[in-house]
């Protein structure tokens, strides 16, 4: 089982539940090592003090904040710990919200919260919170501090466990005001275009089944490594052609609908393919 990243207590009114935080994401990425090309030996990255010209062990390192004028202000772990919010080992539930009210833009990293103690009272309190949240479909908001950073978190029920997702603070989510979102009246679709586009979306709609999406990038890297191991050379596939904007939106929508209805759930001829045959 995954290693606990933080332990503390989840506090709900006067009820305190000792909990551990586990990552809900596992690292399945393909990792490469740095290798010295000449002799095939792995590269070691060393922390080096340029003043003394020697390697420095981790416990001799502290934090430096660079001011605008280039000066470094030294801040120690002790000082950082001292200014942590008073109840740093507690996630205080400040409010309950409807999950549907929270825009996904705020979600950051998902974790599980699990009971940190086998004490029967604590385990029951954990179970009680899980059950109440599953019955009401409410999610809890709270704040906590981990690794010298304060997090806003949303806690909810998922598959019989409590899930905690760290969230972005409002000032970290940018505004869309300077982005060209084509809101001028001239770009507004006609009713006929909109109806046709919605019909295309409905034809292509299905249930969300996350298991069917595989990380093709990871699979391709695995094949590349295997071929390379056998001594083959790898060439990058040519870049796909860029389709140009449809001059007639309605014609593109109608043709899509026609092909979707003719071919059932089959694929339509992709724009770049039809361009190739046309060209």
């Amino acid at each position: 089982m995954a290693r606990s990243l933080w332990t503390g207590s989840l506090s709900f009114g006067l009820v305190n539940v000792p909990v551990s935080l586990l990552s809900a994401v596992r690292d399945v990425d393909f990792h490469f090592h740095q290798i010295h090309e000449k002799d095939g030996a792995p590269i070691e990255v060393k922390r080096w003090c340029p003043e003394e010209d020697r390697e420095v062990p981790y416990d001799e390192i502290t934090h430096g904040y660079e001011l605008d004028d280039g000066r470094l202000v030294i801040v120690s772990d002790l000082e950082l710990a001292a200014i942590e919010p008073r109840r740093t080992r507690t996630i205080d539930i400040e409010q309950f919200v409807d999950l549907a009210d929270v825009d996904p833009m705020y979600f950051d990293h998902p974790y599980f919260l699990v009971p940190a103690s086998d004490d029967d009272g604590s385990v029951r309190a954990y179970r009680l919170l899980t059950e109440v949240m599953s019955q009401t479909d409410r999610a809890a908001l709270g704040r906590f501090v981990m690794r010298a950073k304060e997090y806003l978190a949303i806690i909810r029920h998922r598959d019989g466990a409590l899930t905690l997702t760290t969230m972005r603070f409002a000032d970290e989510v940018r505004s869309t005001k300077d982005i060209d979102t084509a809101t001028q009246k001239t770009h507004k679709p006609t009713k006929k275009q909109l109806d046709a586009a919605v019909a295309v979306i409905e034809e292509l709609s299905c249930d969300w089944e996350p298991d069917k999406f595989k990380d093709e990038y990871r699979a391709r890297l695995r094949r590349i490594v295997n071929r390379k191991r056998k001594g083959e050379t790898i060439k990058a596939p040519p870049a796909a052609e860029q389709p140009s904007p449809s001059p007639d939106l309605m014609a593109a929508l109608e043709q899509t609908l026609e092909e979707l209805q003719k071919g059932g759930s089959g694929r339509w001829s992709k724009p770049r393919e039809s361009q190739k045959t046309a060209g």
Partner: protein
Amino acid sequence: MPRSIWNGTITFGLTVVPIKVHSAIEDHGVHFHQVHAKDGARIKQKRVCSKEGREVPYKEVAKGYEVRSGEYVMLSQDEINAGAGERSRLIEIEEFVRAPEIDPVFYEHGYYLGAGEDGQDAYRLLHDALARAERVGIGRWVFHNREYLVGIRALDDALAMHTMRFADELVPADKLDLPQPTRAPGQREIQMAGALVETLHDAFDPTAFTDSYRERVLQLIEAKSRGEEPDLPDQAEPTAGMDLEAALEASLGAKQGGS
């Protein structure tokens, strides 16, 4: 406005939507450099060859995948980039799903899409159709030589795009092996806890939460830059272990008495 980080095309069916991608998130974390405590020198990362014991310039460094302990398959950057596949500038929407079906754990990084060159009409059409159909378009996006699963949806006047985690990256809850209480919470406890949830229930207002710790870190840095030694307050922690029902009753009493 932050400039776009990627320009390309979304297709749904035969409709082509030129777009620009902007990050929707800006990191406001306070970032530190590693410093040698003794002499205040900024730590450098030094690449050293484990065989020769000497520093190696970056151009002599290759990427290797460890197939067995100590055995590496060497790959050039071009060969690693080949893993991205061929759909370099195209996001093809493969299907549409309902947003409430997507569990929040799948959402990774958020982006905004802007209309690309000559693409305003198509942009508006995709936006308005997604908003009306209440759907999220699912496709794949190649960015920085890696392929991501993405969800595209209408957010206010804009199109938003999220990279999505793959299902096999997520730890299933049944792997957690949660302890079970000797007896389940009683009806009265569930009722009281439910009442407490309702008294704390409110609309979500993201601006109500600010990163107060970040502000304190910046104040500490400012004080130290003036040569002041900060006062370090003591910490107090709550104690665990309690009578669940009594704690719930007391919480409800405190909430109702206080309001």
